[in-house]
């Protein structure tokens, strides 16, 4: 049986819609970091939307089906046993679908019916393991492996690690978390802190690391989103951070765009850079800023 470390060296890569749009630099930097670390990403063939928030809000079982199709393709058409999703929304939805298919007969029935209608094999719970980009690097390379590969230490850079809301919530869909030493925590996540510390960064004590960024309401209630983001930016700044590291494309674009909106609409400028953790790791691994898409960020 292969170890987790070996298993994660070649994974099915599910970028999701955001990484082909507003989160393009996350896509670019994830691929670049994977290559630099000798990790193999095989993109899921003909992947579809995970159901995101919009579909889930209208009919959660259609979201379960859409996410299951991605996992079915990886398992049944690509013979992969691990799917890596760097987007928090996709990661959350695939984990939720996995949970539903393990625990809810009605979900199993609906997914089977829609899969047959669509003409592909029905995904069965347990066929693949869904992981986040943080798990992927943390468990395949680890802090020591990363330290050995750092060419350009992040020493002197003060970072607030912002995980957002979907990486740890709700707890029950992440059975591998909160399992003691070495596992990720849902109340105080630390995988991003661990990786960036290994790359030399100084992590600040940031109290809003899993707080809501208002991403779901960025269009329907923009002022509320701006106020939530402004609060996060202020807290990061007050904690001593120069950079906020993110691992969610929705949070990332929200923090960037509402930083500008806060200045325009509320007259408050909080000058703080927002970078994907993969961009910071890429720089630490000696990759050029352009290679990890720093120029695509608004706050670069």
């Amino acid at each position, binding site marked *: 049986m292969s170890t987790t470390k070996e298993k994660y060296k070649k994974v099915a890569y599910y970028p999701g819609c955001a990484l082909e749009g507003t989160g393009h630099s996350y896509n670019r930097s994830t691929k670049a970091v994977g290559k630099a670390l000798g990790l193999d990403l095989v993109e899921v063939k003909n992947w579809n939307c995970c159901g995101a928030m919009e579909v889930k809000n*209208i*009919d959660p079982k259609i979201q379960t089906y859409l996410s299951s199709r991605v996992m079915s393709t990886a398992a049944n058409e690509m013979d992969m046993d691990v799917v890596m999703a760097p987007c928090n929304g996709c990661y959350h939805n695939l984990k939720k679908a996995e949970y539903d298919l393990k625990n809810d007969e009605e979900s199993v029935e609906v997914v089977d019916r*829609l899969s047959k209608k669509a003409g592909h094999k029905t995904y069965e719970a347990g066929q693949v393991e869904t992981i986040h980009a943080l798990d992927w690097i943390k468990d395949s390379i680890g802090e020591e492996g990363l330290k050995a590969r750092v060419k350009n230490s992040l020493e002197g850079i003060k970072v607030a690690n912002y995980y957002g809301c979907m990486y740890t919530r709700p707890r029950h869909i992440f059975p591998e978390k909160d399992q003691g030493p070495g596992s990720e925590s849902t*109340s105080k996540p630390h995988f991003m802190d661990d990786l960036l510390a290994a790359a030399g960064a100084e992590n600040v004590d940031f109290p*809003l690391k899993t*707080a809501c960024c208002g991403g779901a309401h960025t269009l329907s209630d923009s002022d509320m989103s701006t106020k*939530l983001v402004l609060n*996060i930016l202020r*807290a990061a700044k*007050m904690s001593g951070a120069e950079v906020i590291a993110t691992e969610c494309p929705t949070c990332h674009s929200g923090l960037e765009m509402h930083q500008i909106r806060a200045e325009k609409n509320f007259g408050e400028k909080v000058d703080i850079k927002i970078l994907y953790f993969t961009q910071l790791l890429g720089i630490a691994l000696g990759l050029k800023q352009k290679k990890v898409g720093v120029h695509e960020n608004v706050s670069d």
Partner: protein
Amino acid sequence: MRTLAELETVFDTPPSDDVAAVAEDLLRASEEVLEHWIVARGDTPTQDTREGFLLLALHRQGTKGDPSFNACRETAREVAYHYNLVTMQPGHSDITNRLQLMGLVSKHLYLFIAGKLQVAGLGEFCCSSKPIRTTQDYETTTPKEA
């Protein structure tokens, strides 16, 4: 219980010299925010405490049922943590910063809960739009429970 509009001013009040009193105000205002949510859901706010905090008991009460505000677990705990930090070491050299951070964390709790109550109503909460889910009938949905 103060109105939501009155509560917002508490979070925006500049810190005074009496740090313990400010921390107390922020904690009480955070509790009232959670009480608003619980009342809007048709329940009576608990007067119990958990780990010495009414705030944490209110949070626990609010996580039961649907819609819940379980997503505020860490924020509520950070408010309690900063309250302890401020009141147990009022003379700390970093006290102003600690108090301001408590204010920001408390305000986040307020924005997250009160904002949704004001703008979208109780059911339209965070990423789970319950009213839409329970009123629409799509191909996969089963007959609704009475």
